[in-house]
Protein backbone atom coordinates (compact mmCIF):
# COMPACT_ATOMS: atom_id res chain seq x y z
CA UNK A 1 0.00 0.00 0.00
CA UNK A 2 1.15 3.52 -0.69
CA UNK A 3 0.77 5.35 2.59
CA UNK A 4 1.63 8.74 1.11
CA UNK A 5 -1.18 8.52 -1.41
CA UNK A 6 -3.53 7.24 1.26
CA UNK A 7 -2.71 10.25 3.42
CA UNK A 8 -3.10 12.61 0.46
CA UNK A 9 -6.49 11.17 -0.44
CA UNK A 10 -7.73 11.26 3.12
CA UNK A 11 -7.51 15.04 3.41
CA UNK A 12 -10.65 16.63 1.98
CA UNK A 13 -10.28 19.65 -0.29
CA UNK A 14 -10.84 22.78 1.84
CA UNK A 15 -12.68 25.92 0.82
CA UNK A 16 -10.45 28.63 -0.68
CA UNK A 17 -9.67 31.70 1.43
CA UNK A 18 -12.36 34.34 1.61
CA UNK A 19 -11.76 37.83 0.25
CA UNK A 20 -11.77 39.04 3.84
CA UNK A 21 -9.03 36.62 4.87
CA UNK A 22 -6.90 37.73 1.93
CA UNK A 23 -7.48 41.39 2.66
CA UNK A 24 -6.63 40.96 6.32
CA UNK A 25 -3.42 39.08 5.53
CA UNK A 26 -2.41 41.83 3.10
CA UNK A 27 -3.17 44.57 5.57
CA UNK A 28 -0.83 42.95 8.11
CA UNK A 29 2.00 43.36 5.62
CA UNK A 30 1.29 47.05 5.28
CA UNK A 31 1.94 47.67 8.95
CA UNK A 32 5.14 49.30 10.20
CA UNK A 33 8.13 46.97 9.91
CA UNK A 34 9.03 45.31 13.16
CA UNK A 35 12.41 44.24 14.31
CA UNK A 36 12.69 40.63 13.34
CA UNK A 37 14.04 38.19 15.82
CA UNK A 38 16.93 36.11 14.60
CA UNK A 39 15.50 32.72 15.35
CA UNK A 40 11.97 31.53 15.39
CA UNK A 41 9.47 34.30 15.17
CA UNK A 42 6.98 33.30 17.74
CA UNK A 43 3.80 34.92 18.92
CA UNK A 44 2.67 37.76 16.75
CA UNK A 45 0.57 39.60 19.22
CA UNK A 46 -3.04 40.10 18.33
CA UNK A 47 -5.22 37.84 16.27
CA UNK A 48 -2.82 35.12 15.38
CA UNK A 49 -1.25 34.63 18.75
CA UNK A 50 -4.69 34.23 20.28
CA UNK A 51 -4.89 30.68 19.00
CA UNK A 52 -1.53 29.69 20.40
CA UNK A 53 -2.12 31.50 23.65
CA UNK A 54 -5.01 29.35 24.75
CA UNK A 55 -2.38 27.96 27.04
CA UNK A 56 -3.75 26.26 30.06
CA UNK A 57 -2.51 27.50 33.38
CA UNK A 58 -0.97 24.49 34.96
CA UNK A 59 -1.70 23.73 38.53
CA UNK A 60 1.41 22.17 39.86
CA UNK A 61 1.04 18.98 41.71
CA UNK A 62 2.51 20.43 44.85
CA UNK A 63 0.22 18.62 47.23
CA UNK A 64 1.52 15.14 46.98
CA UNK A 65 4.42 15.07 49.32
CA UNK A 66 6.89 12.43 48.26
CA UNK A 67 6.41 9.23 50.16
CA UNK A 68 9.23 8.39 52.56
CA UNK A 69 11.87 6.26 50.89
CA UNK A 70 11.18 2.62 51.39
CA UNK A 71 13.75 -0.05 52.03
CA UNK A 72 14.75 -1.66 48.75
CA UNK A 73 12.80 -4.66 47.77
CA UNK A 74 12.93 -8.37 48.26
CA UNK A 75 15.61 -10.60 46.88
CA UNK A 76 13.52 -12.24 44.24
CA UNK A 77 10.79 -10.67 42.15
CA UNK A 78 8.92 -12.24 39.31
CA UNK A 79 8.58 -10.36 36.01
CA UNK A 80 5.31 -8.68 36.81
CA UNK A 81 6.41 -7.81 40.31
CA UNK A 82 9.49 -6.13 38.84
CA UNK A 83 7.31 -3.79 36.79
CA UNK A 84 5.03 -3.10 39.72
CA UNK A 85 8.03 -2.34 41.91
CA UNK A 86 9.13 0.20 39.30
CA UNK A 87 5.63 1.64 39.39
CA UNK A 88 5.95 2.13 43.16
CA UNK A 89 9.13 4.12 42.57
CA UNK A 90 7.35 6.25 39.99
CA UNK A 91 4.99 7.38 42.71
CA UNK A 92 7.85 8.89 44.66
CA UNK A 93 9.34 11.14 41.96
CA UNK A 94 9.27 14.89 42.69
CA UNK A 95 7.65 17.59 40.57
CA UNK A 96 9.04 21.00 39.63
CA UNK A 97 8.48 24.10 37.52
CA UNK A 98 10.10 23.15 34.21
CA UNK A 99 9.26 20.02 32.27
CA UNK A 100 11.87 18.68 29.88
CA UNK A 101 12.32 15.72 27.59
CA UNK A 102 15.51 14.53 25.92
CA UNK A 103 14.59 12.01 23.25
CA UNK A 104 16.92 9.91 21.12
CA UNK A 105 15.44 8.18 18.08
CA UNK A 106 17.17 5.64 15.90
CA UNK A 107 16.59 2.94 13.38
CA UNK A 108 18.66 -0.12 12.55
CA UNK A 109 19.97 -0.78 9.07
CA UNK A 110 21.77 -3.77 7.66
CA UNK A 111 25.14 -3.27 5.99
CA UNK A 112 25.92 -6.18 3.69
CA UNK A 113 29.70 -5.87 3.57
CA UNK A 114 31.84 -8.44 1.76
CA UNK A 115 33.65 -9.11 5.02
CA UNK A 116 30.42 -9.92 6.86
CA UNK A 117 26.94 -8.50 7.40
CA UNK A 118 26.53 -6.14 10.34
CA UNK A 119 23.94 -3.68 11.62
CA UNK A 120 24.21 0.02 12.26
CA UNK A 121 21.90 2.47 13.97
CA UNK A 122 21.21 5.34 11.59
CA UNK A 123 18.67 8.11 11.22
CA UNK A 124 19.78 8.88 14.75
CA UNK A 125 18.74 12.17 16.20
CA UNK A 126 18.23 13.74 19.57
CA UNK A 127 15.60 16.33 20.46
CA UNK A 128 15.74 18.28 23.68
CA UNK A 129 12.76 20.36 24.70
CA UNK A 130 11.79 22.24 27.83
CA UNK A 131 8.58 23.97 28.79
CA UNK A 132 7.75 26.27 31.66
CA UNK A 133 4.89 24.90 33.70
CA UNK A 134 2.83 28.00 33.02
CA UNK A 135 2.23 30.03 29.93
CA UNK A 136 4.73 32.90 29.69
CA UNK A 137 7.52 31.00 31.42
CA UNK A 138 9.06 30.14 28.09
CA UNK A 139 10.04 27.04 26.21
CA UNK A 140 12.97 25.90 24.10
CA UNK A 141 13.62 23.24 21.53
CA UNK A 142 16.99 21.89 20.41
CA UNK A 143 17.87 19.15 17.96
CA UNK A 144 20.94 17.44 16.58
CA UNK A 145 21.79 14.52 14.32
CA UNK A 146 23.84 11.86 16.06
CA UNK A 147 26.58 9.80 14.40
CA UNK A 148 25.54 6.49 12.86
CA UNK A 149 27.10 3.61 14.80
CA UNK A 150 27.37 -0.18 14.86
CA UNK A 151 24.61 -1.58 17.05
CA UNK A 152 26.42 -4.17 19.19
CA UNK A 153 30.03 -5.04 20.04
CA UNK A 154 29.83 -7.81 17.47
CA UNK A 155 28.60 -5.35 14.84
CA UNK A 156 31.46 -3.04 15.80
CA UNK A 157 33.98 -5.84 15.26
CA UNK A 158 32.54 -6.54 11.79
CA UNK A 159 32.52 -2.84 11.01
CA UNK A 160 36.23 -2.64 11.84
CA UNK A 161 36.83 -5.74 9.73
CA UNK A 162 35.15 -3.91 6.84
CA UNK A 163 37.70 -1.08 7.24
CA UNK A 164 35.76 1.13 9.70
CA UNK A 165 33.86 3.03 6.98
CA UNK A 166 32.57 6.45 7.99
CA UNK A 167 29.58 6.41 5.63
CA UNK A 168 26.95 3.75 5.19
CA UNK A 169 24.65 3.40 2.20
CA UNK A 170 21.74 1.26 3.30
CA UNK A 171 18.33 0.15 2.04
CA UNK A 172 15.60 1.76 4.14
CA UNK A 173 12.60 -0.22 2.94
CA UNK A 174 11.61 2.12 0.13
CA UNK A 175 14.82 3.95 -0.78
CA UNK A 176 18.57 4.04 -0.13
CA UNK A 177 19.88 6.26 2.63
CA UNK A 178 23.42 7.28 3.43
CA UNK A 179 24.41 7.83 7.04
CA UNK A 180 27.72 9.08 8.38
CA UNK A 181 29.64 8.81 11.63
CA UNK A 182 29.81 12.61 11.84
CA UNK A 183 28.45 14.30 14.95
CA UNK A 184 26.44 17.51 14.84
CA UNK A 185 26.25 20.29 17.43
CA UNK A 186 22.93 21.20 19.02
CA UNK A 187 20.87 23.23 16.55
CA UNK A 188 18.53 26.00 17.58
CA UNK A 189 17.48 26.98 14.06
CA UNK A 190 14.92 25.29 11.92
CA UNK A 191 11.41 24.05 12.15
CA UNK A 192 10.46 22.87 15.64
CA UNK A 193 13.62 24.39 17.11
CA UNK A 194 14.36 27.67 18.82
CA UNK A 195 13.36 29.48 21.97
CA UNK A 196 10.08 31.12 22.77
CA UNK A 197 10.42 33.35 25.82
CA UNK A 198 6.62 33.64 26.04
CA UNK A 199 5.80 29.95 25.61
CA UNK A 200 5.25 27.18 28.07
CA UNK A 201 2.17 25.86 29.78
CA UNK A 202 0.79 23.95 26.85
CA UNK A 203 2.12 21.98 23.90
CA UNK A 204 3.25 18.97 25.83
CA UNK A 205 -0.09 17.22 25.79
CA UNK A 206 -0.36 13.66 24.55
CA UNK A 207 -2.74 12.98 21.69
CA UNK A 208 -4.43 16.34 21.94
CA UNK A 209 -4.70 16.49 25.71
CA UNK A 210 -3.85 19.72 27.45
CA UNK A 211 -1.44 19.84 30.35
CA UNK A 212 -4.41 20.53 32.56
CA UNK A 213 -6.19 17.42 31.36
CA UNK A 214 -3.03 15.40 31.86
CA UNK A 215 -2.73 16.70 35.39
CA UNK A 216 -6.28 15.71 36.21
CA UNK A 217 -5.94 12.07 35.23
CA UNK A 218 -6.85 9.58 37.94
CA UNK A 219 -4.14 7.35 39.34
CA UNK A 220 -6.33 4.26 39.68
CA UNK A 221 -5.11 1.68 37.20
CA UNK A 222 -8.56 0.23 36.53
CA UNK A 223 -9.89 3.69 35.68
CA UNK A 224 -6.89 4.46 33.48
CA UNK A 225 -7.27 1.14 31.68
CA UNK A 226 -10.93 1.90 31.10
CA UNK A 227 -10.15 5.47 29.91
CA UNK A 228 -7.31 4.67 27.53
CA UNK A 229 -6.71 0.99 26.96
CA UNK A 230 -9.99 -0.88 26.62
CA UNK A 231 -11.10 -2.01 23.15
CA UNK A 232 -14.40 -0.32 23.78
CA UNK A 233 -13.04 3.13 24.56
CA UNK A 234 -10.49 3.05 21.76
CA UNK A 235 -13.23 1.95 19.36
CA UNK A 236 -15.49 4.69 20.67
CA UNK A 237 -12.78 7.28 20.06
CA UNK A 238 -12.56 6.05 16.49
CA UNK A 239 -16.31 6.50 16.07
CA UNK A 240 -17.12 9.65 17.97
CA UNK A 241 -20.40 10.03 16.08
CA UNK A 242 -21.59 6.74 17.49
CA UNK A 243 -20.41 3.26 16.68
CA UNK A 244 -22.83 0.73 15.24
CA UNK A 245 -24.35 -1.26 18.07
CA UNK A 246 -22.90 -4.64 18.83
CA UNK A 247 -19.61 -4.04 17.11
CA UNK A 248 -16.17 -3.66 18.52
CA UNK A 249 -12.62 -3.88 17.30
CA UNK A 250 -9.76 -5.87 18.66
CA UNK A 251 -7.13 -3.23 19.25
CA UNK A 252 -3.67 -4.73 18.71
CA UNK A 253 -1.79 -4.99 22.03
CA UNK A 254 1.15 -3.11 20.46
CA UNK A 255 -1.13 -0.10 19.96
CA UNK A 256 -2.23 -0.26 23.59
CA UNK A 257 1.33 -0.58 24.80
CA UNK A 258 2.26 2.45 22.72
CA UNK A 259 -0.66 4.42 24.15
CA UNK A 260 0.38 3.59 27.70
CA UNK A 261 4.00 4.48 26.97
CA UNK A 262 3.10 7.69 25.16
CA UNK A 263 1.09 8.84 28.13
CA UNK A 264 3.66 7.72 30.69
CA UNK A 265 6.38 9.92 29.24
CA UNK A 266 4.22 13.03 29.56
CA UNK A 267 4.01 15.41 32.52
CA UNK A 268 1.39 13.41 34.32
CA UNK A 269 1.47 13.04 38.06
CA UNK A 270 3.96 10.37 39.10
CA UNK A 271 1.21 8.23 40.59
CA UNK A 272 -0.64 8.39 37.25
CA UNK A 273 2.48 7.05 35.55
CA UNK A 274 2.56 4.24 38.08
CA UNK A 275 -1.14 3.59 37.47
CA UNK A 276 -0.59 3.42 33.72
CA UNK A 277 2.16 0.87 34.13
CA UNK A 278 -0.11 -1.23 36.32
CA UNK A 279 -2.93 -0.82 33.83
CA UNK A 280 -0.72 -2.00 30.98
CA UNK A 281 0.20 -5.18 32.84
CA UNK A 282 -3.48 -6.14 33.01
CA UNK A 283 -4.09 -5.95 29.25
CA UNK A 284 -4.42 -9.15 27.24
CA UNK A 285 -1.55 -9.47 24.78
CA UNK A 286 0.78 -7.40 26.95
CA UNK A 287 3.27 -9.28 29.10
CA UNK A 288 5.93 -8.44 31.62
CA UNK A 289 9.16 -9.87 30.20
CA UNK A 290 11.50 -9.15 33.09
CA UNK A 291 14.83 -7.43 32.78
CA UNK A 292 15.82 -5.84 29.50
CA UNK A 293 18.33 -3.25 28.35
CA UNK A 294 17.25 -0.11 26.58
CA UNK A 295 18.92 1.11 23.35
CA UNK A 296 21.16 3.46 25.34
CA UNK A 297 22.47 0.49 27.30
CA UNK A 298 20.53 1.20 30.49
CA UNK A 299 19.15 -1.78 32.38
CA UNK A 300 15.46 -1.82 33.22
CA UNK A 301 12.33 -3.91 33.39
CA UNK A 302 10.11 -4.35 30.40
CA UNK A 303 6.63 -4.94 29.07
CA UNK A 304 6.10 -6.43 25.62
CA UNK A 305 3.15 -6.81 23.29
CA UNK A 306 2.44 -10.02 21.38
CA UNK A 307 4.63 -10.15 18.32
CA UNK A 308 3.39 -9.60 14.77
CA UNK A 309 4.71 -10.47 11.32
CA UNK A 310 6.02 -7.90 8.84
CA UNK A 311 6.95 -8.55 5.23
CA UNK A 312 9.24 -6.58 2.98
CA UNK A 313 7.79 -7.28 -0.44
CA UNK A 314 10.24 -5.47 -2.67
CA UNK A 315 7.41 -3.32 -4.08
CA UNK A 316 9.79 -0.35 -3.91
CA UNK A 317 12.80 -2.31 -5.19
CA UNK A 318 15.88 -2.79 -3.07
CA UNK A 319 18.20 -5.72 -2.57
CA UNK A 320 16.82 -9.23 -2.90
CA UNK A 321 18.37 -10.11 0.45
CA UNK A 322 16.15 -7.56 2.19
CA UNK A 323 12.90 -9.26 1.19
CA UNK A 324 10.90 -11.66 3.27
CA UNK A 325 9.05 -11.98 6.53
CA UNK A 326 10.18 -11.47 10.10
CA UNK A 327 8.34 -11.21 13.39
CA UNK A 328 8.83 -8.50 15.97
CA UNK A 329 7.21 -7.04 19.05
CA UNK A 330 6.87 -3.68 20.71
CA UNK A 331 8.68 -3.39 24.03
CA UNK A 332 8.72 -0.60 26.60
CA UNK A 333 11.46 -0.45 29.21
CA UNK A 334 11.25 1.23 32.60
CA UNK A 335 13.99 2.19 35.01
CA UNK A 336 13.58 -0.11 37.96
CA UNK A 337 15.07 2.38 40.42
CA UNK A 338 13.02 5.44 39.51
CA UNK A 339 10.06 4.11 37.53
CA UNK A 340 11.01 6.44 34.67
CA UNK A 341 10.08 5.41 31.15
CA UNK A 342 13.38 4.60 29.37
CA UNK A 343 12.42 3.56 25.87
CA UNK A 344 9.93 2.18 23.41
CA UNK A 345 11.36 -0.13 20.78
CA UNK A 346 10.53 -2.77 18.20
CA UNK A 347 12.46 -5.97 18.94
CA UNK A 348 13.00 -8.84 16.55
CA UNK A 349 11.44 -12.10 17.75
CA UNK A 350 11.78 -14.32 14.67
CA UNK A 351 14.59 -13.41 12.26
CA UNK A 352 13.79 -13.34 8.56
CA UNK A 353 13.66 -11.04 5.54
CA UNK A 354 15.85 -7.99 6.03
CA UNK A 355 16.83 -9.19 9.50
CA UNK A 356 17.52 -12.83 8.61
CA UNK A 357 21.07 -12.57 9.94
CA UNK A 358 20.14 -10.87 13.20
CA UNK A 359 19.29 -12.53 16.50
CA UNK A 360 16.04 -12.34 18.48
CA UNK A 361 16.13 -9.24 20.67
CA UNK A 362 17.72 -7.18 17.89
CA UNK A 363 16.29 -3.65 18.09
CA UNK A 364 14.71 -2.58 14.78
CA UNK A 365 13.83 0.96 15.76
CA UNK A 366 13.44 2.89 18.97
CA UNK A 367 12.61 6.03 20.83
CA UNK A 368 14.69 6.38 23.99
CA UNK A 369 13.99 8.93 26.69
CA UNK A 370 17.45 9.96 27.74
CA UNK A 371 15.79 12.00 30.41
CA UNK A 372 12.35 13.44 31.05
CA UNK A 373 11.05 15.14 34.13
CA UNK A 374 10.52 18.23 36.21
CA UNK A 375 13.25 20.57 37.43
CA UNK A 376 13.19 23.80 39.41
CA UNK A 377 15.70 25.53 37.14
CA UNK A 378 15.62 26.06 33.39
CA UNK A 379 16.97 22.88 31.80
CA UNK A 380 19.53 22.82 28.98
CA UNK A 381 20.78 19.94 26.86
CA UNK A 382 23.99 18.10 27.55
CA UNK A 383 26.78 18.44 24.97
CA UNK A 384 27.77 14.89 25.77
CA UNK A 385 26.63 12.27 23.32
CA UNK A 386 24.18 9.69 24.63
CA UNK A 387 26.58 6.95 23.55
CA UNK A 388 30.15 6.45 24.62
Amino acid at each position, binding site marked *: *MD*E*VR*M*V*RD*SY*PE*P*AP*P*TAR*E*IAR*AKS*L*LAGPPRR*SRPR*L*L*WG*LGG*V*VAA*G*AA*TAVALTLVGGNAPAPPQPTGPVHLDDKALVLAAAEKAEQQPTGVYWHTDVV*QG*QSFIVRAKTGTYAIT*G*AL*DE*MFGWWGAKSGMGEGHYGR*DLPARPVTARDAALWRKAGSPSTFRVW*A*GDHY*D*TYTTKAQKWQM*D*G*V*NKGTDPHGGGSLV*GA*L*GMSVEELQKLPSDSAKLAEMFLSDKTIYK*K*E*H*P*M*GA*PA*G*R*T*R*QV*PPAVKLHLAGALAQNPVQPKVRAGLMRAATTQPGIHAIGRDTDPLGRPGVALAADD*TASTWTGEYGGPQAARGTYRSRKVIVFDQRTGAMLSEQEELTKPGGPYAEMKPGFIIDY*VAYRSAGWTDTKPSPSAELPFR
Partner: protein
Amino acid sequence: MTGDPPPHPAERFDEVFDAYFVEIHRYAAKRLGPDAAGDVAAQTFLEAFRQRRRYDPERAGVRTWLYGIATKVVGRHQRAETRALRARARLGPGRGAEEHTERVDARVSAQGLRGELAGAIAALPRGQRDVLLLVALADLSHDEVAAALGISYGTVGSRLSRARTTLRRALGGTNPMLTLEEQHG
Protein backbone atom coordinates in the same frame (compact mmCIF):
# COMPACT_ATOMS: atom_id res chain seq x y z
CA MET B 1 30.08 35.45 -0.43
CA THR B 2 27.33 36.40 -2.83
CA GLY B 3 27.34 39.53 -4.89
CA ASP B 4 24.16 40.90 -6.42
CA PRO B 5 21.23 38.68 -5.53
CA PRO B 6 18.83 37.64 -8.30
CA PRO B 7 15.20 38.88 -8.25
CA HIS B 8 14.05 38.52 -4.72
CA PRO B 9 10.90 38.56 -2.56
CA ALA B 10 12.44 41.62 -0.95
CA GLU B 11 11.59 43.61 -4.06
CA ARG B 12 8.45 41.88 -5.29
CA PHE B 13 6.68 40.64 -2.22
CA ASP B 14 3.21 41.54 -3.47
CA GLU B 15 3.74 39.19 -6.41
CA VAL B 16 4.85 36.45 -4.06
CA PHE B 17 1.71 37.00 -2.01
CA ASP B 18 -0.60 36.87 -5.02
CA ALA B 19 1.06 33.76 -6.41
CA TYR B 20 1.10 31.66 -3.26
CA PHE B 21 -1.43 32.86 -0.71
CA VAL B 22 -4.22 30.55 -1.87
CA GLU B 23 -1.91 27.54 -1.92
CA ILE B 24 -0.48 28.18 1.53
CA HIS B 25 -3.98 28.78 2.87
CA ARG B 26 -5.00 25.42 1.43
CA TYR B 27 -2.08 23.66 3.13
CA ALA B 28 -2.95 25.33 6.44
CA ALA B 29 -6.64 24.45 6.04
CA LYS B 30 -5.79 20.82 5.41
CA ARG B 31 -3.54 20.61 8.42
CA LEU B 32 -5.46 22.75 10.89
CA GLY B 33 -8.99 23.10 9.56
CA PRO B 34 -10.78 26.12 8.12
CA ASP B 35 -10.88 28.16 11.33
CA ALA B 36 -7.13 28.43 11.80
CA ALA B 37 -6.20 28.50 8.11
CA GLY B 38 -6.67 32.24 7.64
CA ASP B 39 -4.56 33.07 10.68
CA VAL B 40 -1.82 30.62 9.80
CA ALA B 41 -1.61 31.77 6.19
CA ALA B 42 -1.55 35.41 7.29
CA GLN B 43 1.13 34.73 9.85
CA THR B 44 3.18 32.78 7.30
CA PHE B 45 3.21 35.70 4.89
CA LEU B 46 3.91 38.19 7.63
CA GLU B 47 6.93 36.19 8.75
CA ALA B 48 8.03 35.72 5.14
CA PHE B 49 7.69 39.45 4.66
CA ARG B 50 9.85 40.15 7.69
CA GLN B 51 12.46 37.64 6.60
CA ARG B 52 12.36 38.59 2.93
CA ARG B 53 15.83 40.13 2.93
CA ARG B 54 17.26 36.97 4.34
CA TYR B 55 15.62 34.76 1.72
CA ASP B 56 18.37 32.91 -0.13
CA PRO B 57 17.39 31.79 -3.64
CA GLU B 58 20.42 29.50 -3.69
CA ARG B 59 18.93 27.45 -0.90
CA ALA B 60 15.29 27.06 -1.86
CA GLY B 61 12.62 28.20 -4.28
CA VAL B 62 10.15 30.77 -3.00
CA ARG B 63 7.40 28.17 -2.80
CA THR B 64 9.57 25.81 -0.76
CA TRP B 65 10.66 28.67 1.49
CA LEU B 66 7.02 29.59 2.14
CA TYR B 67 6.08 25.99 2.95
CA GLY B 68 8.95 25.87 5.43
CA ILE B 69 7.66 28.96 7.20
CA ALA B 70 4.08 27.71 7.06
CA THR B 71 5.15 24.44 8.63
CA LYS B 72 6.82 26.34 11.47
CA VAL B 73 3.65 28.28 12.07
CA VAL B 74 1.57 25.11 11.96
CA GLY B 75 3.97 23.61 14.51
CA ARG B 76 2.94 26.27 16.97
CA HIS B 77 -0.66 25.23 16.53
CA GLN B 78 0.05 21.60 17.18
CA ARG B 79 -2.87 21.13 19.48
CA ALA B 80 -5.14 22.68 16.92
CA GLU B 81 -3.84 20.18 14.39
CA THR B 82 -4.59 17.27 16.66
CA ARG B 83 -8.08 18.65 17.16
CA ALA B 84 -8.48 18.98 13.39
CA LEU B 85 -7.39 15.40 12.85
CA ARG B 86 -9.95 14.27 15.38
CA ALA B 87 -12.66 16.41 13.85
CA ARG B 88 -11.86 14.96 10.44
CA ALA B 89 -12.33 11.49 11.84
CA ARG B 90 -15.76 12.57 13.03
CA LEU B 91 -16.76 14.11 9.71
CA GLY B 92 -15.80 11.16 7.56
CA PRO B 93 -18.24 9.39 5.30
CA GLY B 94 -20.95 7.48 7.10
CA ARG B 95 -21.91 10.50 9.14
CA GLY B 96 -25.39 10.42 10.57
CA ALA B 97 -27.25 8.25 12.97
CA GLU B 98 -29.38 6.18 10.61
CA GLU B 99 -27.03 3.22 10.47
CA HIS B 100 -29.31 0.39 9.39
CA THR B 101 -28.45 -1.19 6.10
CA GLU B 102 -25.55 -3.42 5.31
CA ARG B 103 -24.27 -0.87 2.91
CA VAL B 104 -23.74 1.39 5.87
CA ASP B 105 -21.38 -1.17 7.33
CA ALA B 106 -19.00 -0.70 4.44
CA ARG B 107 -19.15 3.02 4.94
CA VAL B 108 -18.57 2.60 8.64
CA SER B 109 -15.38 0.69 8.11
CA ALA B 110 -14.22 3.40 5.73
CA GLN B 111 -14.98 5.89 8.46
CA GLY B 112 -13.08 3.73 10.91
CA LEU B 113 -10.07 3.64 8.62
CA ARG B 114 -10.22 7.35 8.23
CA GLY B 115 -10.41 7.83 11.97
CA GLU B 116 -7.54 5.43 12.51
CA LEU B 117 -5.44 7.12 9.87
CA ALA B 118 -6.13 10.53 11.38
CA GLY B 119 -5.22 9.17 14.80
CA ALA B 120 -2.05 7.58 13.50
CA ILE B 121 -0.99 10.84 11.83
CA ALA B 122 -1.76 12.73 15.02
CA ALA B 123 0.42 10.33 16.99
CA LEU B 124 3.47 10.73 14.73
CA PRO B 125 6.38 12.74 16.12
CA ARG B 126 6.28 16.31 14.78
CA GLY B 127 9.35 15.89 12.61
CA GLN B 128 7.93 12.86 10.86
CA ARG B 129 4.49 14.40 10.48
CA ASP B 130 5.94 17.55 8.91
CA VAL B 131 7.92 15.54 6.36
CA LEU B 132 5.00 13.24 5.56
CA LEU B 133 2.53 16.08 5.07
CA LEU B 134 4.90 18.25 3.05
CA VAL B 135 5.31 15.31 0.68
CA ALA B 136 1.66 14.24 0.69
CA LEU B 137 -0.12 17.61 0.81
CA ALA B 138 2.37 20.05 -0.71
CA ASP B 139 3.92 17.64 -3.22
CA LEU B 140 7.41 18.74 -2.25
CA SER B 141 10.32 16.56 -3.36
CA HIS B 142 12.79 15.20 -0.81
CA ASP B 143 15.22 17.98 -1.78
CA GLU B 144 12.57 20.60 -1.28
CA VAL B 145 11.44 19.19 2.06
CA ALA B 146 15.08 19.20 3.19
CA ALA B 147 15.41 22.85 2.19
CA ALA B 148 12.05 23.82 3.68
CA LEU B 149 12.72 22.26 7.06
CA GLY B 150 16.47 22.89 7.21
CA ILE B 151 17.28 19.20 7.62
CA SER B 152 19.43 16.86 5.57
CA TYR B 153 18.19 14.89 2.58
CA GLY B 154 18.90 11.68 4.47
CA THR B 155 16.81 12.79 7.42
CA VAL B 156 13.88 13.51 5.09
CA GLY B 157 14.07 9.99 3.70
CA SER B 158 14.42 8.33 7.06
CA ARG B 159 11.59 10.32 8.64
CA LEU B 160 9.31 9.58 5.73
CA SER B 161 10.01 5.88 5.78
CA ARG B 162 9.58 5.79 9.54
CA ALA B 163 6.24 7.57 9.26
CA ARG B 164 5.18 5.14 6.54
CA THR B 165 6.14 2.15 8.64
CA THR B 166 4.23 3.54 11.61
CA LEU B 167 1.11 4.18 9.54
CA ARG B 168 1.32 0.76 8.00
CA ARG B 169 1.59 -0.83 11.42
CA ALA B 170 -1.21 1.30 12.83
CA LEU B 171 -3.51 0.55 9.90
CA GLY B 172 -2.75 -3.14 10.07
CA GLY B 173 -5.29 -3.23 12.85
CA THR B 174 -8.09 -1.87 10.66
CA ASN B 175 -8.22 -4.95 8.54
CA PRO B 176 -11.97 -5.68 8.33
CA MET B 177 -11.21 -9.21 9.43
CA LEU B 178 -10.39 -7.78 12.82
CA THR B 179 -13.74 -6.06 13.22
CA LEU B 180 -15.68 -8.49 15.28
CA GLU B 181 -19.41 -8.97 15.39
CA GLU B 182 -20.38 -9.41 18.95
CA GLN B 183 -22.95 -12.02 19.75
CA HIS B 184 -26.53 -10.85 20.01
CA GLY B 185 -28.96 -12.39 22.48
